[in-house]
């Protein structure tokens, strides 16, 4: 009588193809394949960096040589041959442009295909955009307006050139070059990224945004982002990521560092939809990212919000070090895995200051034959009097071939602190699907409604423009018939 059944739904859901899979023909300039000290020197020279930066990179590189790739995450990984990657790829037309009109039209087309026409965004939302294609920042809008407020928002390369004292003071202070394998690698070879400094008492008047996109084949993308919020300042920063379809696994090992001084607040939102590989698990991006924020001053606050739908493998643990008294760390996450995707993500909250607060809300959605893990650490150190943490990790399963896992680590050494952790696992029940379809919705519509309802608590934390895009992304990653 009807073929509306779960199996069919699962099948449909798991065969959703990557919508953003296309490559742009822009002339690219590559550094030779492989990695050695000369490549590090090449990158540094190409970017006309001061001596201290080269030394810093080389130190990181030498340390990296002594490290081993981590194996602890719950993921099957195809070993990356680090000598078989390009470490530098820049669009050849050196884009020193005055307006968006001068941007390579091919590139603009790319953004149009992504559905984020920057012109539109610029006009309608007043978002200042720093676009990173592969490794080089192409165009930064709204520079002047920001400049008037004393806000520095530019590519990392420009920051190294124009504000070396700030870079020197902060780079590597939150994520040391020796922190982990990928952070060390990133420190050695990072090619670009965004830099942001908000001076004392300034509230950044607009959302700052970076759109990352991996384009060239066989490149590893190593961006480095550094955000400094000086005393009493506020900034909301958005990061979006897409990568075209490639058969090879591309490596993405970014580092994001945030420093929030006294009374400062930083909101960092990510929508990540790197290419997840095809439905048989071929290709896709390895997303091994180190993101960490330091609540340096009293009453500072750092919030991470992420919607993760892409990448074939994601290892990512945006963290907060709550050093200042009364500082606050937050982590809101929706991670969707489908087909053969593997995500191992969560947050680390380290409470050092007194009366510090942290909150972790993680919503995992697994479909297909994917694996979705929450891994997180709440560490209340001895002196962190009256600290509080609340963590909620929910998993939603679609189909019976996927896995959902929760690995929370809780370490407490202070008796006046309260830590609570809750986790539940549930499935999209047939009853709910039947109810929705009896009200006239087809599978895709019903799914979108249910998923967005499930993830609402996190989506609500995103800035408006992003929330809409994120909802669409969730729908795209889980539905076959949307479009």
């Amino acid at each position, binding site marked *: 009588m009807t073929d509306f059944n779960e199996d069919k739904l699962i099948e449909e859901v798991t065969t959703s193809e990557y919508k953003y899979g296309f490559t742009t023909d822009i002339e690219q300039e590559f550094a030779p394949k492989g990695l050695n000290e000369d490549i590090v020197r090449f990158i540094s020279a190409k970017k006309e960096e001061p001596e201290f930066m080269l030394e810093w990179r080389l130190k990181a590189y030498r340390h990296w040589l002594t490290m081993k790739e981590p194996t602890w995450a719950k993921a099957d990984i195809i070993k990356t041959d680090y000598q078989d990657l390009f470490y530098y790829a820049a669009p050849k037309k050196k884009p020193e442009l005055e307006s968006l009109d001068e941007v390579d039209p091919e590139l603009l087309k790319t953004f149009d295909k992504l559905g984020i026409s920057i012109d539109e965004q610029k006009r309608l939302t007043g978002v200042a955009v720093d676009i990173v294609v592969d490794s080089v920042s192409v165009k930064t809008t709204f520079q002047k307006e920001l400049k008037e407020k004393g806000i520095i928002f530019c590519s990392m390369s420009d920051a190294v050139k124009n504000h070396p004292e700030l870079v020197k003071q902060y780079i590597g202070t939150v994520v040391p070059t020796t922190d982990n394998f990928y952070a060390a690698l990133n420190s050695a070879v990072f090619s670009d990224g965004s830099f942001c400094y908000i001076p004392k008492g300034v509230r950044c008047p607009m959302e700052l945004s970076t759109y990352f996109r991996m384009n060239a084949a066989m490149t590893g993308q190593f961006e480095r982002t550094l955000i400094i919020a000086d005393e009493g300042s506020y900034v909301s920063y958005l990061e979006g990521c897409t990568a075209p379809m490639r058969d090879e696994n591309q490596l993405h090992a970014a580092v994001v560092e945030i420093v929030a001084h006294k009374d400062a607040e930083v909101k960092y939102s990510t929508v990540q939809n790197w290419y997840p590989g095809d439905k048989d698990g071929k290709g896709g991006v390895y997303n091994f990212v180190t993101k960490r924020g330091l609540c340096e001053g009293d009453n500072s606050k750092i919030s991470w919000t992420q919607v993760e739908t892409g990448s074939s493998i994601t290892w990512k643990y945006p963290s907060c070090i709550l050093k200042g008294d009364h500082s606050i760390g937050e982590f809101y996450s929706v991670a969707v895995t489908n087909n053969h995707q593997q995500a191992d993500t969560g947050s680390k909250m380290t409470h050092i200051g007194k009366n510090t607060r942290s909150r972790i809300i993680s919503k995992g959605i697994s479909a297909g034959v994917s694996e979705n893990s929450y891994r997180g650490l709440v560490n209340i150190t001895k002196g962190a009097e009256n600290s509080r943490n609340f963590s909620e990790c929910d998993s939603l399963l679609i189909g019976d071939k996927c896995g959902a896992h929760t690995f929370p680590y809780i370490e407490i050494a202070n008796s006046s602190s309260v830590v609570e952790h809750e986790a539940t696992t549930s499935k999209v029940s047939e009853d709910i699907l039947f109810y929705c379809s009896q009200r006239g*919705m087809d599978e895709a519509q019903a799914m979108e409604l249910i998923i967005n309802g499930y993830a609402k608590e996190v989506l609500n934390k995103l800035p408006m423009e992003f929330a809409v895009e994120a909802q669409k992304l969730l729908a795209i990653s889980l539905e076959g018939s949307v479009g």
Partner: protein
Amino acid sequence: MSLLKVENLQAKIEDNQILKGLNLEVNPGEVHAIMGPNGSGKSTLASVIAGREDYEVNGGKVIFDGEDITDLEVHERAQKGIFLAFQYPVEIPGVSNANFMKSSINALRKARGEEPMPAKDFLQRMREKSALVEIDSKFMSRAVNEGFSGGEKKRNEIFQLAMLEPKLALLDETDSGLDIDALKIVSDGVNKLRNENNAFVVITHYQRLLNYIVPDYVHVLADGKIVKSGGKELALELEEKGYEWVKDHAAETV
């Protein structure tokens, strides 16, 4: 032309044959009551008309508005104007009533080739219809049926019925678990929605509901078939004599 025509319908779940050749014809403007003992197949009938996949139709057909819908999917039937008020309304965590209704109405409109309903009109309609079943407007932002009392869930079903304006409404034991005040609210709501273009099939175990929603026809369902049909007075007779009486006299009407 009849609105709903059920012809020799046979349906089973797993190896259990529940409907064994059921016939029913409903015309626009009519209210039919289906009564019967527990396990006679009342809820199955509603589910099968709505298209629930758990049941396998292994004989007969369902014709709606002149079209054989036996092979259509649940949402396609809903889009054609069949509404099922659930016996056990489902809770949907995180999805607000407003959002749920918006998705539903727009799905129905899309199927008819219409544009989505403007937000202003939608809100206006929500306010109007929620008053009909005496639902507080605050409930619109609450998750669908989550944490609702039994009575609230049933009222929510009638609210949705009012919002979606179906051609055919199947009320599956909407009266069960309701106190008398809630029953009156629900019945009043249904009575206000009755008109010459729509029809209701009211499934109930108790005659009580039929004091408030007065049916044009009463059918008695036993062992997967309609064994007796009559006017509203049949319900009273049933109440008095019990279902055993019908079963004993089943042969009379066949």
